[in-house]
């Protein structure tokens, strides 16, 4: 099978997300698709698999113009998309998940569990997996769930399998198993479109790579002929150096001090952050960084430890208390905890400060309008007006709205959990500049980030956590990725 996409264009409203993308893949190769978040990779894949309709361009499958009507249609033609959030049913068994909508039935029209179980087991054994087909999907590890997804793809006889960041949540061991499976399938002439953010995987598993940026396909290379900094350059559109504005901190008093914080998934964490400082928190997924900050802010329970705000011991028992003490928290999960996506920018921005707009109990609408407009302007949120819904904005602009909320509520201490996740390149830079502006005005920032270059470039000091424990603090000036990584993986 051979797929050729040429000049693909797509707009959402006035927002042109694909501006002419060329991409091709054939059976028996692993073709990587690289690019920053928002570069258009998902949109491109959604167009290929019939989830979205293209505005312009052509898709040729084995030299015939093809448009799939739906994901199901694409599957019937041998194209399978394994999404990053695998859409499986945690409460149902592995067999039932695998045969959902394709149940084998007995003559009486009842589900033939025996036959389904046998077939499911066979597919998994072929992949070299010994997963119990009767176990609940939700009880499997992420790696095992991925195996089930691949088995599902093989069940429908997939010729091309699209994988979206398959290793993001895998252990090293699981990754090795996955790569082995991919290599075997590749030699059986299955083709892969492999979306990943992990640079090193390009040379481990991929034959070719196409780099996308801002809705364009920049270049396609044989991975053996290309070097890492060329790919980075293509992704960012400039050398990585001018991407970060640089830090020139003027430290003030200690704004927040935490002593021996313990709770679920973190033990004995102590740190302090000064006015005008950015304190980075680095670590692997599950290191306990987010959990620590959630408990500190009062979202989750702190089992022990003391917190001092501006030198005074303070009990932060709930977000509303923390906000009153001048703390703001940009959460990792923007859609579920950061924004009310169906409500207006103004409603979102004013929410933490809403009590301050009361005039004899009634909200001073004019003052609120002014407040929201001012913040939208100051944080350079790109939106027609303050009344559009938050959900209609791009990821970067949504993030700016969440920031506007906390800037507006007068936070003296800001906790930013993955502030640039899902944010496009341009907006990323603006967010960094904004962080600098805030620290220039003596705001203390705690930044959790899994992006190593970001932590190194934007922090003044870096705390590293590993499995809920504090491994050490590094002065960011002159620190290297290796130094941080060593601590983050438990090395001394």
């Amino acid at each position, binding site marked *: 099978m051979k797929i050729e996409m040429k000049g693909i264009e797509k707009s959402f409203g006035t927002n042109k997300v694909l501006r002419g993308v060329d991409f091709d893949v054939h059976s028996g190769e692993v073709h990587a698709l690289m690019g920053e978040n928002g570069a258009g990779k998902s949109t491109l894949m959604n167009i290929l698999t019939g989830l979205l309709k293209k505005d312009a361009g052509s898709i040729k499958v084995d030299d015939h113009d093809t448009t799939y009507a739906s994901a199901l249609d694409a599957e019937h033609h041998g194209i399978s998309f394994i999404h990053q959030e695998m859409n499986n049913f945690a409460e149902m068994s592995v067999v039932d998940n695998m045969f959902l909508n394709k149940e084998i039935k007995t003559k009486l029209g009842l589900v033939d569990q025996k036959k389904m179980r046998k077939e499911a087991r066979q597919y998994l054994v072929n992949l070299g997996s010994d997963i119990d087909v009767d176990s609940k999907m939700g009880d499997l590890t992420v790696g095992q769930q991925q195996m089930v997804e691949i088995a599902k793809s093989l069940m429908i006889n997939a010729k091309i399998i699209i994988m979206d960041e398959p290793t993001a949540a895998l252990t090293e061991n699981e990754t090795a198993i996955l790569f082995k499976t991919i290599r075997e399938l590749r030699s059986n002439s299955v083709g892969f479109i492999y979306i990943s953010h992990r640079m090193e995987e390009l040379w481990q598993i991929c034959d070719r790579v196409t780099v996308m940026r801002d809705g364009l396909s920049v270049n396609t290379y044989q991975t053996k002929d290309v070097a890492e900094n060329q790919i980075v350059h293509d992704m960012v559109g400039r050398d990585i150096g001018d991407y970060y504005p640089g830090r020139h901190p003027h430290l003030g008093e200690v704004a927040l001090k935490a002593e021996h914080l313990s709770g679920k998934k973190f033990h004995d964490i102590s740190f302090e952050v000064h006015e005008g400082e950015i304190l980075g928190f680095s670590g692997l997924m599950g290191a306990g960084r987010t959990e620590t900050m959630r408990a500190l*802010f009062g*979202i989750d329970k702190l089992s022990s430890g003391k917190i001092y705000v501006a030198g005074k011991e303070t009990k932060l028992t*709930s*977000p*509303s208390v*923390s*906000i*009153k003490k001048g703390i703001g*928290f940009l*959460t990792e999960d923007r859609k*579920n*905890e*950061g*924004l*009310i*996506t*169906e*409500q207006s920018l103004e*409603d979102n921005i*004013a*929410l*933490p400060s*809403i*009590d301050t*707009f*009361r005039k004899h*109990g*009634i*909200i001073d609408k004019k003052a609120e309008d002014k407040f929201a*407009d001012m913040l939208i302007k100051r944080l350079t949120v790109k939106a*027609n*007006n*303050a*009344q559009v819904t938050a959900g209609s904005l791009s990821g970067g602009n949504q993030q700016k709205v969440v920031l506007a*909320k906390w800037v507006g*509520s007068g936070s003296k201490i800001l906790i930013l959990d993955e502030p640039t996740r899902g944010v496009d390149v341009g907006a990323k830079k603006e967010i960094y500049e904004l962080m600098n502006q805030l620290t220039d005005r003596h705001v203390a920032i705690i930044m959790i980030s899994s992006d190593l270059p970001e932590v190194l470039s934007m922090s003044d000091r870096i705390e590293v956590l590993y499995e809920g424990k504090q491994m050490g603090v590094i002065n960011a000036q002159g620190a290297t990725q290796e130094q941080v990584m060593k601590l983050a993986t438990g090395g001394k």
Partner: protein
Amino acid sequence: MDKAKTTKKKFDFTKYMALVALIILVIIITVLNPQFIAPNNLLNLLRQASVNALIAFGMTFVILTSGIDLSVGSILAFTGAISASLILGGTPAWLAALIGLAIGALLGALNGVFITWGKVTPFIATLATMTIWRGATYVFTGGNPITGGKMNTSYFFQFVGQGYLFGIPFPVIITLIAFIICYVLLHKTAFGRKTFALGGNEKAAFVAGVKTKKLLIIIYTISGLFAALAGFILTSRLGSAQPDAGMSYEMDAIASTVIGGASLMGGKGRMAGTLVGALLIASLSNGMNLLGINSFYQQIVKGVVILIAVMIDSQTQKNRE
């Protein structure tokens, strides 16, 4: 920001859907029987609408938080019976009314506590309390209406449900005042904003400093309070407290709210919409009575109207997206 103003002013048809439907309904009924718009009938209609409207005002807050309160009918009956028996026992009617309201608020707060601290979903929590307070009403009344005695002689008691002020039935005046208070509370205060925020995204509201548990308890308290207010008015209007009073009133209240444009998913709804919804339901009953339509058929028609209203609403929602 010029663009902002044009989009803001663009006529939002969905907002007035229920009102348009009400006007069309009024026209149709009037054509079929002009008696309908006679002032006496309209005042009567408003009085009929008031009990449901009051419950629906409280329900609007609840539904905005993506909750539901099934217990309002039982709270209405229970507090109505208590107020009535207090009056019979010699308590001044105004004090009996206040005690009824206080108990209604308390029962509402209890719902809120079960939902927040007890972590029971609103549907189940209020389904349970609906059964509990209905049962309690039967136990308290022995299954018999409470009537007669001082209830026939108390001016205050009689006036609340049957009196007129400036030629307008007193329940209508209460409803109007309640509407204004609820409208301001929902659309002009921080409390209302937080209610919308909680309904739109409870987690995000909590992180933004909204005390979500406290807010929910207050909202269910409001709902209980309005059920009790409706209960006192109904008791006064009938001159007796019936043990099965308010049966299935929660359905009319939910229907009014939903016809008025509220979404059971929360975060979307308007007080004026609820008022129109309550008027629409009252007009349907009143109109069909005038037209001599059997009350069995009325239920069918009511159900169909609810379905159509919500289908049109969700369809236009989709088109806008």
